């Protein structure tokens, strides 16, 4: 286990060290000590390494991650795993707003709750939230899966494209063009696999599926009120 202590190591030095790791590196286990809510921790990684951040982070932890597994033992500030490409990010605590924003791949697991705009503009990322999510989550979600084991706030899936949304609890309201859809066997399989990868014990059959009604895909004057 390699250790980088942010009490004595600069952010730049820490990120440069992690970013320098290559596919074949032997240094696969890293520990970040004393994050103290710092921003941009472990961003731009591109190697199959495992990084444990021991504490809570500020904005954009694990931003644009590729391949790496980043495990935050505390909570994460806004934009955790934003634009993630691949790999896995696990947050033991809660995540602030914009978790997984614009993510294009990989798996983001939030063991606590996620605030507003979770999965905003998601483009292929899979997000599993064990708790609740805030309002406007999955806004303009294009692709990927958002799994919520708790409740969802207002305007879920507003202006949704092709992202799939699975919610076990209540949904306060659906956003424009977001509707409940039939949970078919293939969706149960997707959901089962996601829950398993996230290490969450929940039954897929308890979830409901939401998706785009596709009525806003091309401008129609009769839908003007929805714009």
């Amino acid at each position: 286990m390699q250790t980088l202590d942010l009490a004595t190591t600069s952010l730049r030095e820490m990120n440069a060290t992690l970013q320098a790791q290559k596919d074949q590196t032997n240094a696969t286990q890293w520990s970040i000590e004393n994050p103290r809510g710092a921003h941009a921790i472990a961003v731009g990684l591109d190697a199959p390494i495992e990084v444990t951040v021991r504490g809570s982070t500020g904005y954009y932890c694990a931003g644009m991650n590729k391949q790496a597994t980043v495990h935050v033992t505390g909570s994460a500030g806004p934009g955790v795993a934003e634009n993630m490409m691949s790999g896995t990010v696990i947050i033991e605590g809660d995540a602030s707003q914009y978790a997984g924003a614009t993510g294009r791949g990989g798996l983001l697991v939030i063991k606590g709750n996620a605030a507003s705009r979770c999965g905003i503009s998601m483009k292929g990322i899979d997000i599993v939230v064990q708790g609740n999510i805030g309002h406007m989550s999955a806004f303009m979600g294009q692709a990927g899966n958002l799994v919520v084991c708790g409740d969802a706030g207002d305007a879920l899936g507003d202006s949704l494209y092709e992202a799939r949304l699975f919610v076990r609890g209540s949904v306060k309201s659906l956003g424009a063009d977001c509707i409940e859809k039939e949970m078919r066997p293939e969706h149960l399989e997707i959901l089962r696999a996601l829950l398993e990868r996230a290490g969450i014990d929940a039954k897929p059959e308890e979830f409901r599926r939401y998706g785009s009604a596709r009525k806003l895909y091309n401008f129609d004057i009769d839908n003007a009120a929805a714009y």
Partner: protein
Amino acid sequence: MNDHDKRIPQTVPIQSATFTNPINAEIRRAAATGIYDIRGGGAKRRVPHFDDLLFLGASISRYPLEGYREKCDTRVTLGTRFAKKPIELDIPITIAGMSFGALSAQAKEALGRGASAAGTSTTTGDGGMTPEERGHSTKLVYQYLPSRYGMNPDDLRRADAIEIVVGQGAKPGGGGMLLGQKISDRVAEMRTLPKGIDQRSACRHPDWTGPDDLEIKILELREITGWQAPIYVKVGGTRPYYDVALAVKAGADVVVLDGMQGGTAATQDVFIENVGLPTLACIRPAVRALQDLGLHREVQLIVSGGIRTGADVAKAMALGADAVAIGTAALIALGDNDPKWEAEYQKLGTTTGAYDDWHEGRDPAGITTQDPDLAARLDPIEGGRRLRNYLKVMTLEAQTIARACGHNHLHNLEPEDLCALTMEAAAMAQIPLAGTDWYPGKPGTSY
């Protein structure tokens, strides 16, 4: 047969100055279709512009440089504040961001070829970075937009600079749109969207709001790219003093300021014509913000929106810009709105010089289209040559003026080289009205 008594004078039919024929036509169009008019380009209305300024030239109080013998430098370095690798350009005229999707792949290639041959940079747009564009652009600025279409860390690191787009002059406060007819298989794949749907881009970034967040976002991008590439912040011309100051506070290396004549691929006509400031009105407040912060020239200012000639370049730089960016003018250099397509423009219900339905994908010149047959009309090598020529001419024109004003570098042009032809231009540019030493709002005067 009119039985009116011809001995009695008739009233002459008078067209309304309020309900003009174009306005009435738009009312009828709106009533028939139920949708607002969407088009490309920038503001077409007459606004005070660089045409309303003149250079004074040298005489006894200043002496000029010899036109073809004495050097007038045009080089500019962008991103000297924090970036480890600032961009060094041979000329201070850059190519503004225009997306693959809005433009054909051939057009993007031509822009890259032309810009590279002229020693300047080109810029991606709201559709990610294409291999053609990267391959043909020696200096490529990668836009970071609210949509984040195609955004990835590899392209970020391949970029020579990163431009965080907060807004643009044609639609400050508005998002983007690319209508379904231009969402081809390739465009759809790059943007992770179904083919053929109307693509909407958000007006705000998904993971930050406000200048404090922007500062953290810039930190993240610098950390991902190792602090190598300059980071630009692009804003539409609305509140230039405050927006420039906040962009600088957030850590920008370069601020790009786009006035309302700056073009867009597609947005509502009512937005283009009624929101934002003329380019001329933006520059002095922006420069003042930089000066107040003690960072004029250390944080570079790129001005865009209606730059057409070397005179416009020189005037923007005399007002304090470090460089300019062109978009619409570059497309015209490639062949947009060329009279040779007049018959086809007529079929589309328009005419040369007025064609602006760039969003429909039926561009006869093959530039603003994804139709393979139309796109094939533009030879990217010839297009690149034309753009290079145009950039060279603009540079020569700007040098000609600078020498006439006695300057051995375009950056030495200054407000004192200018006078204004109209009160409006004098007020907006804070340049004395021709023949006077006064402009409206001049400190120490009561007007």
